[in-house]
């Protein structure tokens, strides 16, 4: 029996062809990861800087194949359509690599000065980025899940990186427990989808689900559980409870990483689900996402109003931003053009959000080096002794609020366009909700601005802040992107246009 099975396996086996150019970014990141671990094991303490330098170089080198693949312009379909490198994947891979590089820039001094484990930190960071790269190419439920775990498990450890600090341990534990709970819910949903369609490939599932004869109750449960599972990852209300505590307790560079890269990866998964797996089941996912988006915006913004700690405020603001980004999904199922418009608006917003949120965290880190505090009051009079940081922070916060001529307004504009495009009542109502929330959000963003520009320095200490070059490089990069995109939005709208075609299947 066994011999027969083995013989059959041998007879039918054909060596799959592997397109090494297509998976070069992943290979480079994986190789860098291994190299960092080896170098860390065989060097002394005074050469720890090597690991951060290597991590940064590895991420930049991994960008080269992404660019060359983009110029090549051919959709590459690997492993029978389970792994696809198309423009959508390339735009997001670029985003993950660049935001990962900025997180490395932010981490360099923080990790070196805090007596943390450095080699392992960068190794885990790269592992998480590798998971995100895989996520953007995954077109199969199992690949999606493996990518999700690969990006989540290192992040659980990174959140608890400040060892012997109770708050950091709490951050890691809460994130871990909520994360595995979400994974369980997600797996349940995936198993239902697989059970009803008989395939793990996203396009096959989409094909099977477009048949109206499929059992509605099981499909409804499958879709709902899958969306809830990813809702945890993007911290949508009511699955957001881990986010503020985790963001506050985790080391600040890790918080920046979680709130930008990890959230983006969650959105990539949501986009894959909505646009590739069940695009024809709008009647099920639209009301659900409508409710999630509206609740996320309101709860995030209203609680952010009351925060006194800047990291917690940014955490709740990040929750609200996730609500803006989820809103177009709630009208995506009306027509092909509304699906395209909402996919484009979300990708563009993700690109802009990454720059402005990473920048805000970079400024918070730079200021905390002097004030040793995360309270909003500690920003008092920042303009009088660190005008550059104060201007940069103002740029990032007003961009988050969506004020022209900064990048945030263009992202918001895209979302409004996507919401009103189908001309349905639910779309108009959600657009009004986004508008109302933008006004609420302006209050707490502007409050930080007022503290920085108008109030006195709390302890009268006006010695200038010495910002390490890596952090200032990160701030300059993010600020430049935020301003340039605000003035010339074509920079990202082209990327968004390219990413609207989700190549699926073989």
């Amino acid at each position: 029996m066994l011999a027969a099975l083995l013989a059959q396996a041998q007879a039918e086996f054909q060596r799959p062809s592997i397109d090494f150019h297509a998976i070069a970014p992943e290979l480079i990141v994986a190789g860098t990861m291994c190299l960092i671990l080896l170098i860390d094991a065989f060097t002394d303490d005074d050469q720890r800087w090597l690991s951060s330098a290597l991590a940064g170089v590895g991420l930049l080198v991994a960008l080269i194949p992404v660019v060359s693949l983009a110029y090549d312009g051919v959709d590459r379909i690997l492993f029978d359509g389970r792994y696809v490198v198309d423009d959508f994947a390339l735009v997001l891979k670029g985003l993950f690599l660049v935001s990962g590089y900025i997180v490395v820039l932010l981490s360099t001094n923080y990790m070196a000065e805090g007596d943390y484990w450095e080699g392992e930190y960068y190794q885990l960071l790269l592992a998480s980025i590798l998971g995100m790269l895989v996520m953007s190419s995954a077109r199969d439920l199992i690949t999606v899940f493996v990518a999700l775990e690969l990006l989540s498990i290192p992040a659980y450890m990174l959140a608890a990186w400040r060892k012997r600090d109770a708050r950091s341990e709490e951050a890691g534990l809460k994130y871990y427990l909520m994360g595995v709970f979400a994974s369980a819910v997600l797996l349940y949903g995936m198993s239902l989808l697989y059970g009803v369609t008989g395939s793990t490939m996203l396009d096959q599932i989409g094909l099977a689900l477009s048949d109206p004869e499929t059992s509605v109750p099981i499909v409804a449960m499958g879709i709902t559980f899958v969306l809830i599972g990813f809702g945890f990852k993007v911290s949508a209300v009511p699955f957001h409870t881990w986010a503020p505590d985790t963001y506050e307790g985790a080391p600040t560079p890790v918080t920046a990483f979680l709130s930008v890269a990890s959230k983006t990866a969650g959105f990539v998964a949501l986009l894959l689900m909505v646009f590739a797996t069940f695009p024809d089941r709008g009647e099920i996912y639209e009301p659900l996402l409508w409710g999630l988006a509206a609740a996320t915006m309101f709860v995030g913004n209203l609680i952010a109003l009351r925060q006194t700690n800047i990291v917690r405020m940014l955490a709740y603001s990040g929750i609200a931003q996730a609500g803006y980004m989820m809103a177009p999904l709630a009208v995506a199922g009306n027509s092909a053009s509304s699906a395209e418009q909402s996919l484009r608006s979300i990708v563009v917003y993700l690109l802009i959000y990454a720059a402005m949120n990473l920048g805000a965290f970079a400024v918070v880190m730079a200021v905390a080096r002097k004030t040793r505090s995360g309270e909003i009051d500690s920003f008092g009079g920042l303009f009088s002794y660190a005008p550059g940081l104060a201007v940069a922070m103002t740029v990032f916060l007003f961009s988050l609020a969506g004020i022209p001529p900064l990048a945030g307004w263009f992202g918001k504009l895209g979302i409004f366009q996507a919401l009103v495009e189908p001309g349905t009542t639910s779309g108009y109502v959600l657009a009004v909700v986004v508008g109302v929330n933008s006004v609420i959000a302006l209050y707490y963003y502007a409050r930080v601005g007022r503290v920085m520009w108008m109030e006195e320095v709390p302890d009268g200490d006006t010695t200038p802040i010495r910002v390490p070059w890596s952090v200032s490089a990160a701030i300059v990069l993010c600020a430049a992107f935020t301003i340039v995109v605000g003035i010339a939005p074509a920079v990202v709208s082209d990327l968004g246009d390219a990413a609207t075609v989700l190549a699926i299947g073989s």
Partner: protein
Amino acid sequence: MDQYLPILLMLVLAVAFAGISIVVSRVLAPRLSTVAKESPYECGITDAKEAPERFPVTFFLVAMIFIVFDIEVIFLVPWSLVLEELGPFGIGAILIFAAAVFESFVYLIGNGALDWGPVKRVRPGPVVSPSRTAASTVRRVGLEGRGAAAREEAA
């Protein structure tokens, strides 16, 4: 909204199942507790000390070493089935894979996963801690019966 009816039904079912289980076990289960029943189980031997205890982290590292080899074998078995078809490409691929997996083994050994014995600190903490001052580290003796001024001067 009737497309969400199955979810609601599922929710009701889950709550009902959990609730009924708790209530039924409260009502039906006999509660005859003795000291022996409530003490932690230690293979039949009377427990000598508190059961919850912190294990040395080396135990977990040994478990990790097991996982390293486990993963290696899981991938080696299917590879060995198609070894001939893969040819030199397969040999090269599995060598790279083995190197990547064994690297974590090297890392574990390098970090003392197999060093049993007295715990050594791998990385020293900061040499000077701000909490260490002359008042906190030097034990003053012979101050009994002397004036408050002398005591302050000593501190």
